[in-house]
C-alpha cells in the first residue's frame, strides 16, 4: 500500500522528467483525427509534418504505413514535409536517425468511427437530448 502511494505521488514527477527528456525533439502533425462512417469509410487527408531537434544531425520521418522513410535530412535541425494519404486505420509518424534506430518523437493519427460494429449501438439514437 505504501509503495502504491509512493508510486502515485511520483507519477507527476515522472511525467515532468519524461517531458524534459523529450524536449530536445519535436514532431508535430496536423491534422490528427479522421472521422469515418458507413458513407465515408476513409479520409483523404493531407498531413503537414514538422520536426525540430536541439541537435543538428541526420534525421528521418517514418510512418507505420511504409517501411521506407518518407524523407530524410542531413545536418539538419528541423524539417517539414507534406504527406497525402487515404486513412481508415489509426497509425503513427515518428522521427528517428534512420532505419532501425529508436523513435525520438512520434505523433499518432487517430480514427474515430461514428459507426459501431454493434448494430444496435449504431442504429439506436438517444431520445430528446441525445447530443454525444
Amino acid at each position, binding site marked *: 500500500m505504501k509503495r502504491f502511494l509512493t*508510486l502515485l505521488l*511520483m*507519477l507527476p514527477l*515522472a*511525467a515532468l522528467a*519524461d517531458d524534459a527528456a523529450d524536449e530536445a525533439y519535436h514532431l508535430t502533425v496536423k*491534422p*490528427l*483525427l479522421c*472521422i*469515418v*462512417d*458507413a*458513407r*465515408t469509410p476513409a479520409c483523404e487527408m493531407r498531413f503537414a509534418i514538422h520536426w525540430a531537434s536541439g541537435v543538428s544531425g541526420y534525421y528521418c520521418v517514418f510512418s507505420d504505413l511504409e517501411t521506407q522513410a518518407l524523407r530524410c535530412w542531413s545536418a539538419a535541425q528541423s524539417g517539414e514535409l507534406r504527406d497525402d494519404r487515404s486513412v481508415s486505420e489509426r497509425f503513427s509518424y515518428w522521427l528517428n536517425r534512420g532505419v532501425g534506430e529508436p523513435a525520438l518523437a512520434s505523433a499518432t493519427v*487517430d480514427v*474515430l468511427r*461514428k459507426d459501431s460494429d*454493434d*448494430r*444496435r*449501438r*449504431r*442504429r*439506436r*439514437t*438517444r*431520445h*430528446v*437530448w*441525445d*447530443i*454525444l
Partner: protein
Amino acid sequence: MKIRTACLLLALLPALAAAESPWRLGAALGYGERSNPLAQSDDVPLVLDLDIAYFGERFFFDNGDLGITFADNAGMTASVMARFSSDRVFFGRTDTKFVVFDAAGLPLSEAVELAIPDRDHAVEAGIELLTDGRWGFLQLSAFHDVSGTHDGFEIDASYGIGFRQGNWYIEPAVGLAYKSADLNDYYWGVRPDEAGIALPAYEAGAGINPRLRLRAAYYFSREWSFAVSAEYERLNDEAAASPIVEHDSVLGYFAGLAFRF
C-alpha cells in the same frame, strides 16, 4: 522504465476499457434549454447531459430505455422495449398562479387560483425496429402504456443521416409521432373535476407531432468534442388547443463540451 510503463497504462486505461466494454459512457457540460409548452410553466434547463448505455448480447439499457433484442441482422434490428412516457417531463415544472381573467379573457370579480393539473409518469412497453445504410438510418417504434396511467399508445417514425466535413459530424433528422386519443387526453386534457372558471374542461383527441432535429459535433480528439444540438417539435393540434397549453411547439437546444469514455 516501470514508472513510465505505469504512466502509459494509466493513460491508456480509458481507451482499453472503451474497446472491450459493453458500456457506453459520456458526459457533456454546457448550457441548453427545452421550452415548456404548458401555461404557467418554466423551461427545462440543461447544464449536464449524461450518456449511459449498456449493450449486452441481447439485453440493453440506453439512457432510460430497457430492451431485449430478438432479431439483429444486416437488414434490421428488432427489440422489445420498456420506457417512461416522454410527455410527462413538462408537468414537473409548473407553477400555481392567481388570475383575474377567465379562460375567455373576461375579468373576474376576484382573483382565482389557476393550477396546471398534475400528471403521472407512465411505463410504456413496445417494439422498436431499426435499420440503416448508406442512405441514413430509419427507426420505427410502437409503445403502449402498461402501467394503467393513460392506457394509450404512441407510434413513432424517424429518419436521419450523418455527414462528415473535416472534424465536424453533422446529423439532421426528421420524425413523426402519432399519439393516441387516450394518451393525448391524459396529458393534455382537462377533466371536469379539474376544471374551473379559469380552466375549462377539455378533451383531447389523437394527433401527430412532427419534429426536426439537428446535431453537430466538432471533434478535437476521439474523446473530446464540442457538441451542439437543436430540436423543434410541433405539438399536434389536439394538444395545442388545450387550455393548459400556451405554446404550440417545443424548442430545445444545447451547446457544450462533451467527453466520451
